[in-house]
């Protein structure tokens, strides 16, 4: 396995642990992040195949930080699958991009819905907005690129797909994913602990209603 550790400013590292989106890389990235935080070095942000590791260069020398990161890449063990939950997201399949997206995939709307709903997607990581989970991967028959022109306004609760992934917009925001449904579920609530409904590693399942 190829890995690389890059300086990211004077108080962070970016650790790359592989190429391409797959479950094993994501789990490994998360394990490195968990290990780093457990050692008390600082906060970590795992994504598909990389981990951002933050540290205080005045308590942990940057070269030592790099060695520690390298050691974690070798030794960190992904958490067992059983430690993650499956979260159901009741979804009304109505969205401004539903028909066009079905059409470009040469599918009927109902066929697209059947290929999106009632299957488990892995939560790769959270990014973009508080509580926004990048989930995948989609059936290749409904994979579609982002919109050429992102919308200035996407409503909170919009269920969307793009680039072989799916997610739910937690807040009203701009956005470039294709809107195919909506949910009433709150994806992020700062008065709850944890605030985000789903965690990286969980599975989500969209349930048609």
């Amino acid at each position, binding site marked *: 396995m190829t890995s690389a550790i890059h300086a990211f400013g*004077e108080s962070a590292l970016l650790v790359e642990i592989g190429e391409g989106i797959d479950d094993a890389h994501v789990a490994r990235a998360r394990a490195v992040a968990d290990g780093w935080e457990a050692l008390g070095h600082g906060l970590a*942000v*795992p994504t598909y195949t990389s981990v951002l590791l933050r540290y205080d260069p005045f308590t942990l020398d940057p070269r030592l930080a790099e060695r520690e990161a390298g050691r974690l890449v070798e030794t960190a063990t992904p958490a067992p699958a059983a430690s993650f939950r499956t979260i159901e997201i009741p979804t009304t399949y109505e969205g401004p991009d539903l028909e066009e997206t079905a059409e470009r995939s040469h599918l009927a709307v109902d066929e697209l819905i059947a290929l999106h709903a009632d299957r488990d997607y892995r939560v790769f990581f959270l990014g973009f907005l508080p509580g926004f989970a990048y989930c995948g991967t989609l059936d290749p028959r409904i994979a579609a690129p982002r919109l050429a022109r992102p919308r200035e306004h996407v409503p909170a609760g919009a269920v969307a797909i793009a680039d072989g992934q799916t997610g739910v917009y937690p807040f009203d925001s701009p956005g470039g994913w294709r809107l195919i449904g909506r949910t009433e579920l709150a994806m992020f609530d700062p008065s709850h602990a944890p605030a985000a409904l789903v965690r990286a590693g969980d599975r989500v399942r969209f349930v048609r209603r």
Partner: protein
Amino acid sequence: MRIIAAGLRSTVQDRGRFAHLREAVPPSGPADPLAFAAANALVGNGPEAAAIEIVGAPFVFACDDRRVVAVTGRDVRVQVRDRLDGWTAVFVRAGMEVRVLTGERSRFTYLAVSGGVATEPVLSSRATYLPAGFGRALRAGDALPLGPSRVDPARAGRSLVPTEYQDEGVRAITGPHAERFTEEARAVFFSSTFHVDAASDRMATRLTGARVAAPKDEILTCGVIAGAVQIPAGGAPIVLLAEHQATGGYPLIATVIAVDIGRVAQRSPGEPLRFARVEREVALAALRDERRALAEIA
């Protein structure tokens, strides 16, 4: 403290909400972290204290009891009875009206009050993040709670040397994706004079000018930090600031060193900006010097 005039979009900020990055909560906090830290240090607050980031004039306030205040940022002063310099601790009596004075070049101005702003934290931080409704822009008539403060009149008049904001050069370390760029693209980046685009905000300073060729292969989204310089397909660099998203999908050619991030944030639209390449040791030495200067005044 009572806000009499709130400027254009002024917000309460602490040093940032870092504990929830994995839930994709942007850190937020001050766009110019050094000026923010200086304001807190001048009034005797700890680094975790909340202060106010002022955007747009006028900002006028009064406190119900006596306090030490300090205003920092680019081209700033403060008026109590007389006009006083920014980057200086000022003693203010109960009920006295204080006016924050900004200049044409001011972008982000910091007002610290001894005791700190004591608004209710959201997710363990007082940093305002408007897109998610964490806090809101301040309005005239707002009354903000302040923390307890032992006011030491001897502190008044202490000052710090303001950041040199006029200089168009900022220092940067090569970024985590630097190797993916061609040598030519890196040379263009580190030798060109860019200009600040009007679309710049607390999230990022956007630049125009020379086109920096992005790598042919797209990169997968990764975690990012303030100071990171992204090169999107169009080749116009974007320097991330405090309100950056937790993750980003553009290749990172360089990282502005911590002590120079505020100098990027404080550039006004149309002003020039150049990147000078330095090693990580230079960044660390500069950061150490800054911390020492703040510790001496605190």
